[in-house]
């Protein structure tokens, strides 16, 4: 519950106060739903973690902002590498998708140089049944099977088929372990 309380302090504290004063009497405010669902997800991730992926709320204690890691799948150019990502959940999560960014620099056809990801399930194909773990697993499989028909990084999309060796070099060049903030 410490997460929830601190999140009230930062984001929805004023809203809570209004509620207390009897201004609006909505049974459950939207942010609360998201927080609750994220708590359940966190619980699930900790009790039954999926191999190769992990996620945890960021250090500032805001449950709507998470840090995640993906291990590069074997038999792909990303094998042996670890990628850090950031998740920003909207207050109407899970009805709206989280904003996911690669924080580790990555050379990939569907990821641009600022870490933005082009993945349909994070945009229009998002449904409320997705969760952090499924998103991470989808991203992990995206590493091995990029969608080269709609690339954010055209060069990478080209090299993926043409010159796997050069692609691998570019991946290793671009990859750089970052410090946690």
């Amino acid at each position, binding site marked *: 519950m410490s997460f929830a309380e601190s999140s009230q302090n930062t984001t929805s504290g004023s809203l809570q106060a209004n509620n207390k004063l009897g201004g609006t009497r909505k049974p459950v405010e939207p942010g609360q739903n998201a927080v609750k*669902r994220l708590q359940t997800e966190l619980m699930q991730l900790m009790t039954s973690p999926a191999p190769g992926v992990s996620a945890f709320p960021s250090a500032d204690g805001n449950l709507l902002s998470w840090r995640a890691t993906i291990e590069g799948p074997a038999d792909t150019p990303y094998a042996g590498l670890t990628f850090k990502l950031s998740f920003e959940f909207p207050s109407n999560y899970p009805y709206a998708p989280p904003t996911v960014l690669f924080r580790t620099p990555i050379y990939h056809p569907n990821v641009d140089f600022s870490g933005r990801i082009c993945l349909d399930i994070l945009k229009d194909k998002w449904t409320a*049944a997705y969760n952090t773990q499924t998103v991470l697993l989808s991203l992990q499989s995206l590493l091995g099977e990029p969608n080269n028909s709609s690339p954010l990084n055209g060069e990478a999309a080209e090299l993926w088929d043409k010159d796997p060796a050069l692609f691998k070099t570019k991946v290793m060049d671009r990859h750089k372990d970052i410090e946690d903030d």
Partner: protein
Amino acid sequence: MPPPNTPVDGTTTPQSTQPSQPAQSSQSSQSVSRPTSSIIMDASQVKTALVKMDYQAIDYVNPVDETLICPICRTAFHSPITTPCGHTFCAKCINRALERQRVCPIDRQPIDKTRDYRPIPLIIKEQLDRLEARCPNQGCDYVCARENLEAHYERHCEFTLVHCSKPSCDKLVARHLCSIEGQCMHEMTNCDFCLKPVAFVDLDAHWEQECEAAFATCPDCDASVSVVNNSMLKHIQQECPEAMAKCKWDGAGCRVTDKRRIVREHERNGCMYETVGRLLEQQAEDRRIIQDLTRRLASLEAVRDTRRRERRRDSAATINDRTATATAAGGSLTNPTTSTSTPADSTTWESPHNYMLAQFERLESHMEELREMVCEMDMRQSASFLHHSKQVADRFLELGDKVGVLSMHTKWLLNMQYMQRNAQLRAANAASLAAAAAGAGGAGLSGGSDGLNHGGESSSGAGSSSDSGLRYQGSRRGSEGRIENLTRL
């Protein structure tokens, strides 16, 4: 930092609304939208919750099966529905998801929510109802089946938010905090320690988080410890590393008493008495187990004894039945009542049910005995009746005989008298006739000798009948013969 709601509290005047309370109290339990009327006048009346229980906040005792978890909220289904594609969601969750996209969140099949929802099977509903759930209120550790949790939350839970006791205050307060009638928990009071104004309802939080005076420095370890509710005492007795403490194996004979920190170190390094202490613990545990087993054995033996007694009584009853029938035939009276009732009375009964059954059986066997006794008595009665009546009949016959003999005697005597008179008359006549004619006198003599012959026969018959009181057959025949003789006479 004072809570955001404090300024409003200070300015409210409760007296203005007080007189209207009794009139409104009748509808207070239902009305949620009018906070001023929710004041409780009757202590037994229960304040209902103002905010519906949040099913997503429920914590379950056991992990809920994945099949019972809504894919959207990731908690156990609450009033679930099934889509035409066969997926199940909480009604609230799927409705909200469909506001964005009219497709199933699992397989993206189009859904028209006005038509396409189907009810879930009852078996799922029952599974959900039976989940052991904890009350979602913080501070409450009530656990029950989920179907009953809402009632607990809305009517009983001390931590559910209800209207403030003061009618003019429309804020919410945990039920256990609004116990004082008319006392607004949002009114300001002064903190006992820092003397700053704090609302009653926020006192606990204030002590825990803000109030610096509520914390004191432990005299031993220099740590800052709360002084609310004797926490300092608890700290010194149980936690403080610098306070004096005894070794954990004190009971086993260890005499080490030092600062808790050092004692803990001593315990970690292996107290000499640890083995003894563990043995003692083990022994205590064993003793408890033995006691438990003894108790269980005793109860089992009691049950076994009861069963055995019942069985014995049953068999006794059948034996009694048999002997009763046998003795009834023999005509002697037995008393099986005592043999059956004594074990029944001394038995301890497991349940009133069994007791009633046994009583019933006992009464039934009594009835059986009584019936047999009545039968027997009936037989004896009729036998003795027969016996007596036979004697009476014999007497009657004997008397009848005697009467016959007497009447015969009388007739014979009468006959004798008659004959004598006849003879005298005849003699007189004969004398007169002889005087008249000598031939007529010879005929009269022969008739007289004939009459004498008859009298001799009948007297011998009467003599034989008078001494045959027992051989009445013969005497009857005799008397018949006499009667014949008499009629012939």
